[in-house]
């Protein structure tokens, strides 16, 4: 693996949470031409000036709950069609992999994974829950995805899954953009 591709955690002075996978930069020290960094994805550096970032390599470990759920997700590849005795379709490898990837990324932000289940048409859901805040992320067997966010049992968002939105929902729900 090249140095550029190594997974690193930012130790910057910018005060934003950093993911061990969504940001990739050169280990050691590097003068980065930024004034702000987002958490949405690679190359999401904007602005002008110079901030000295020090990085260190981190090998992230999943939380115990995420490990349990991930184990369950991977077990879905062993299901056969009609697994619920009602003509269900078993999830395919692509759907399982997409679910696992999202789960692992979300766990780096300590999002409260709660439950997973396969659906009747080969889809998989990841459910997150913390008190009155809930989220469902659906991975359909045609590759499409959907996320539903709840506050006190009321749907406050239905749309494209976004780690950023999910993070806002659980960490600062009042700031999250909720559009039904």
């Amino acid at each position, binding site marked *: 693996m090249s140095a550029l591709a190594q997974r690193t955690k930012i130790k910057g002075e910018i005060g934003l949470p950093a993911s061990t996978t969504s940001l990739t930069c050169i280990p050691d020290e590097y003068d980065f031409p930024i004034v702000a960094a987002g958490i949405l994805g690679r190359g999401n550096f904007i602005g002008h000036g110079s901030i000295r970032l020090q990085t260190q390599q981190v090998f992230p470990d999943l939380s115990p709950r995420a490990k349990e759920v991930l184990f*369950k997700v991977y*077990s*879905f590849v062993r*299901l056969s069609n009609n*697994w*619920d*005795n*009602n*003509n*269900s*379709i078993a999830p395919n490898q692509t759907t399982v992999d997409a679910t696992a990837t999202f789960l692992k990324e979300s766990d780096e932000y300590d999002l409260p994974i709660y*439950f997973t*289940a*396969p*659906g*009747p*048409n080969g*889809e998989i*859901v990841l*459910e997150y829950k913390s008190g009155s805040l809930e989220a*469902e992320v*659906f991975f359909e067997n045609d590759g499409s995805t*959907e996320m*539903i966010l*709840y506050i006190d*049992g009321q*749907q406050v968002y*239905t749309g494209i899954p976004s780690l950023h939105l999910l993070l806002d929902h659980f960490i600062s729900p009042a700031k999250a953009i909720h559009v039904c």
Partner: protein
Amino acid sequence: MSAEKIEILNSDRLLRKAWFTNPSYVREDMTVTSFAFKLRKDETGLSVDIERLTTYDKSIGDIERNRLFVVTAEVVRSIGLECEHMPLADNYAHAEILNISKNSHSSFLAKNAKYVYFPV
């Protein structure tokens, strides 16, 4: 001759059975996931039983593998869905919830479904 259909009242309770064997549609706290209320690809309506026309014992089917959840017709209609009595030859209580077309419909029904304590 087809069986006579009844009008489903808002107060009618509709029973839906959910797969309970691992992997399960039922969580550990006995709430149910939206998948229990999702249509399969070949379905046009979601099968339920009208509670007052059946018994839990008959509605649950395989008692080892299923659990029952109930939603009222009022809850179903509150999001624009319809429900219609569709008696079958072997199940007069059979009805269908119609127009479920997206995950948010299934999710809403699941969130509002109550666990039926059967078997006790």
